């Protein structure tokens, strides 16, 4: 399942006069950001793309697929 906040038409930054709906949107956006930073969103995309379920095997496949990409990602100074 693709998280709407991450891909495609994500929510805009709520205004300062935000109501409960905007607060909820902001929290959703924050969660989406954290999930992207920590690669959880990437795993969700993998599950969706491969039409498979969350399991040890699928996570091992995901890690295998991402091994070169993540390991080649430089860490900044």
């Amino acid at each position, binding site marked *: 399942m693709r998280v709407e*906040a*991450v*891909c*495609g*038409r*994500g*929510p805009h*930054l709520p205004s300062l006069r935000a109501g409960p709906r905007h607060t909820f949107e902001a929290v959703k*956006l924050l969660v*989406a*950001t*954290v*999930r*992207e*930073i*920590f*690669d*959880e969103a*990437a*795993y969700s*995309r*993998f599950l*969706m*793309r491969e039409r498979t379920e*969350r*399991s*040890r095997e*699928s*996570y*091992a496949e*995901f*890690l295998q*697929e991402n*091994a*070169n*990409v*993540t*390991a*080649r*990602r*430089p*860490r*900044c*100074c």
Partner: protein
Amino acid sequence: MAGAVSIATIALRRGEEINAMWLVVAAVCCYALGYRFYSSFIAAKVLVLDSERATPAERLDNGRDFVPTNKWVVFGHHFAAIAGPGPLVGPVLAAQFGYLPGTLWLLAGAVFGGCVQDFVILLLSVRRDGKSLTEMARDEIGPVGGFIAYAAVISIIVILLGVCALVVVNALKSSPWGTFTIAMTIPIALLMGVYLRRLRPGRVLESSLLGFILVVLAIWGGKWISQTPSMAHWFTLTATSLALIIIGYGFAASALPVWLLLAPRDYLSTFVKLGTIGLLALGIGALRPTMHMPALTRFVDGTGPVFAGRVFPFAFITIACGAISGFHSLISSGTTPKLIRRETETRMVGYGAMLAESMVAIMATIAACVLQPGIYFAINSPAGIVGKTAENAAAVISGWGFPVSAVDMHSLAQSVGEQSLFNRTGGAPAFAVGMAHIFSNSIGGQALMAIWYHFAIMFEALFILTVLDAGTRVGRFMLQDALGHVWKPMGRTSWYPSILFTSAMIVAAWGYFLWQGVKDPLGGINSLWPLFGIANQLLGIVALCVATTIIIKMQRARYAAATIAPLAALVLVTFTASWHKVFDANPRIGFLAHARQLGTAGGNARLIFNDRLDALVTSGLIIMVALILVESVSRWVSGLSGRTQAEVRETPFVRTRFAEE
């Protein structure tokens, strides 16, 4: 107005202490103005961002590397990738000149240099299907540019890793508490790896939270270890022992499967990093501390104990990542351009994230400058300058006009659970003391000072070690790619003989610099940090040469000053600093003068060799700068004079489906 008043207060107040909030307000105002006006100018006039143009994330969307992503999510992702130890350590070291030079360079350097570089490179990479900096340098400047970019990346990685490892060694030597805590992060990361892979597949946030709780417990456990002589004995290590352990660790991290150690540790480090930066911002806001460091110290004349050299160019070389960092261009042309959903969002991600990074550097400056200057210099001065005994060091530092006593330092060391805080060079311990001061005055009082100090040390060491193990692996891949052209099997990233050989090569390269720093009687940082600064700025020069070349090819030469101005500043700084580091007659600054002095005094042959090697590396770097500049300028001249047809190698225009949003 608020920004102008704040900058005037920072710049003109002399002889009395100022509140740290002046720096915060000045930074927030400058960054807000820079973002609102200067980044808009670059977006509209220089780069001509096109909201109708589809990005590679949209065109090549494969749900894996190329994914159209919400701009705030990409911002967070990009900031997490560019925020490393540099903006924390650099400003702390540069505080020896006082808070003014570093702060002004952070503000101006970020707004007109670093942010521009990150923003422009990000956009150019987006328009080239997410190509890397080295590929763009080869395509747009020429084969020499491409080769130099490649060599610069390898050089900077090796020097960066050496100097980062040295900072960790200096932070952990003779510190059983710190060493135990950091040692515990290895089994914690392994446990996280098993949790992620076996127990709760893919639940990274859960496992990071679990890891964080275990690390906090390890900090508490470290206190008990340090107070139990039989246990403390095992974790009280000398600098040389720590260096050997870290070299072995770097090799293991590069050769082991990613999921086992590297990935969990990376997640843990990111979790701690983002949390701590947020906490530090809250702490400074809540405490609004007074800065005891003067605006300018006597060491602007180049006689500083932390590192030698005048304020120009060495403050600019030392600050590095908080103002402008060539390393960022690797991130801007790496993962980030493949996530950008619309071209117009590159402004917020590229320019905005660098402003956030610069704000982190401002906070590091504040953390260093809230310390009494005497304490700051006692922590950061090497024994070779102030003497080996506490009494000697206190007398020398007090003689400079920064009073400190051995008793004060002893009680400070006791309050943070250390045996001594003298000669703890490298910037990390001074930053940790400053951070602990801010935190303990906000939450918990003096009773928690030691916990906060070791939390800060753990935080710095953890994410420096993450840079170290990930960097070793990146360097290993680059070396495998290069050697694969010579002998094909060496290029196979999963072939174990190749993995072991290339890992050993990279570790040996940075390990040598680390060993050199550990054995250096001047503390190592004096030689290695400027070398790192020069290498980093060299990569910035490569990035700005690529950017300027493309801007001219885009027929936007009238606005090329936006990248030529920071490029000129970097060239001036890098060339001047390199000249001083190689040829300066002062043995504390010039490598060759130091080698001559050692030779005359019948000094250690290894130290003489190290000095000559450093001189050779610096000269090599500067020759590369000169070559890439010459090739770039010749492209600009031939393009502007019409001798050659300027050909922009952008991906053809495709209309975005997000245009109507």
